[in-house]
């Protein structure tokens, strides 16, 4: 807790990013409950209305409240972040740790596979999967996780290689502990720092990917919504009612910026080696 507080206080930028992110998160959780409207009701008296006291972000072409819909989009974005990151950690951590600890040919083979997938256009593969196997949003989220575990695997492997010959790992081996025990109890806790950093930096990637796919009309479907869908609708109407593009677009950009900034600063904060250039 104390460490977290020290990190938040380390610069104004970190504090600003954390507060903004907290605001968006609160909006996602409470927003739809606070507003008198719900995302599907059409207000026939104010079609395509500009922002006002009643409709805080205005309304869309069929009179649905944009504030509520934007906050529902935020829920989608945070859900995708949570599911995709869980999937990518579940694959990436064991993959990297096993490769690093085993070494030799196993390591070579496992890392070649990572290299191979690394140079593929992952989002296009996800599009293919979603189109072929049905537009299930949880399938979409999991598929996004399945393409974003590569960096985590590389980081964990690098850290594990560094630890492999450390005296305390040798000691654990001498005591006859099993490989899985060494992995779980001695290796993974020691690579937690870099994992947290790269998880923070991976989140904006999956949020962007989801909005990208939904923007193309291949992800979340009406009447459900996400920032990608809202931005896409906003683009259609941007000449007559620019707020339809500006509000969801800004929420998306702000969220991405917050995660990127927090991840970067966290890296500088935890990695004392790079203090010089930070």
């Amino acid at each position: 807790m104390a460490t977290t507080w020290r990190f938040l206080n380390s610069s104004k930028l970190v504090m600003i990013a954390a507060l903004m992110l907290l605001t968006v998160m609160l909006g996602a959780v409470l927003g739809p409950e606070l507003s008198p409207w719900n995302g599907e009701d059409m207000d026939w008296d104010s079609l395509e209305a500009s922002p006002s006291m009643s409709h805080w972000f205005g309304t869309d072409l069929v009179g649905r409240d944009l504030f509520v819909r934007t906050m529902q989009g935020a829920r989608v974005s945070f859900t995708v972040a949570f599911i995709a990151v869980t999937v990518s950690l579940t694959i990436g951590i064991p993959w990297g740790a096993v490769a690093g600890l085993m070494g030799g040919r196993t390591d070579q083979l496992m890392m070649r596979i990572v290299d191979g997938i690394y140079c593929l256009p992952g989002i296009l593969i996800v599009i293919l999967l979603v189109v072929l196997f049905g537009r299930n949003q949880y399938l979409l989220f999991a598929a996004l996780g399945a393409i974003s575990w590569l960096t985590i695997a590389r980081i964990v492997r690098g850290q594990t290689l560094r630890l492999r010959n450390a005296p305390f790992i040798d000691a654990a081996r001498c005591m006859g502990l099993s490989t899985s025990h060494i992995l779980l109890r001695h290796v993974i806790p020691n690579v937690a720092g870099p994992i947290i950093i790269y998880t923070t930096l991976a989140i904006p990637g999956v949020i962007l990917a989801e909005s990208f796919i939904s923007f193309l009309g291949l992800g979340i479907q009406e009447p459900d919504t996400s920032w990608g869908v809202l931005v896409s609708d906003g683009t259609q109407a941007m000449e007559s009612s620019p707020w339809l593009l500006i509000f969801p677009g800004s929420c998306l950009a702000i969220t991405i910026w917050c995660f990127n900034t927090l991840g970067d600063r966290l890296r500088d904060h935890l990695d004392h080696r790079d203090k010089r250039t930070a």
Partner: protein
Amino acid sequence: MTHYIFKRLLFAFITFFVIVSVVFFMLRLAPGGPFDGERRMPPAIEANLKAAYDLDAPLVVQYVKFLAKLAQGDLGPSFKQKDFTVNELIAAGLPVSATLGLTAMAGAIVLGLSIGITAGLRPGSTLDGLLMAASNLNIAVPTIVAAPLMVLLFSVVLSWFPAGGADTAWHFVLPSIALAIPLSGDIARLMRGSIAEVSYEPHVMTAHAKGLKMPRIVYRHMLPIASMPLITYLGPAMAGLLTGSVLVEQIFDLPGIGRYYIQGALNRDYTLVMGVTIVYSFAILTFNLAVDIAYGFIDPRIRVAGP
């Protein structure tokens, strides 16, 4: 060095083969065939159609036939656009996509390098702060928001550029910028870090002590080392650029192969999607191979020992 190049070539070939096979089986195993329409077809017609597209043979036979045709560069007929082969469609779209991608890549490198070097030479200065804030903004504002705003501002309000199509060079300016901006932000951040780091190296200090001029120090003594991370990054950057081009082609209405990809994915045009995926993977793998070989030439450690 020959050994190293041979190893990379083999790796690229295996990767290509695996990608092609995975996509082939994924498309064939997916539920729903290409001819499942609203109305059921008479069985005789459906059988004939399947025979015409080799869909009646066992999966393994289809696979072998497909590989044999692919080896000759034949991607087969399009399932949905009956009068065209996939080769014809790709031949029509590829020049547009390639122009877009190469212009964007060149623009991103030039812009990213200039910003990164300028900022990295004076870390902590006001200029550095401003340039990095701008780069972070370039990364944070997603293309799906930035590109439509660019159309609104430069095409609709100011009418400086046409809003869609690919008839003249002017049509490529906005799409290339939209595609290059996020990439240039990444490159700038990468270069800033490595330039700032390399400026503390002893050999750079020596160059300063000898009284060399700044441009020469940057160009001869700092850039070769500082650009190593950039070269490694170019491979994944290329994959990102391809993905982005699908989106940019959609927004700016450019008739490139990215549009065929989305269209094919939506109509279950198996052969078209396969064809575009193959072209994309081929482009990425070739590019990565070139990057790896360039890396080998630049870094003497690899030239001697291999990675």
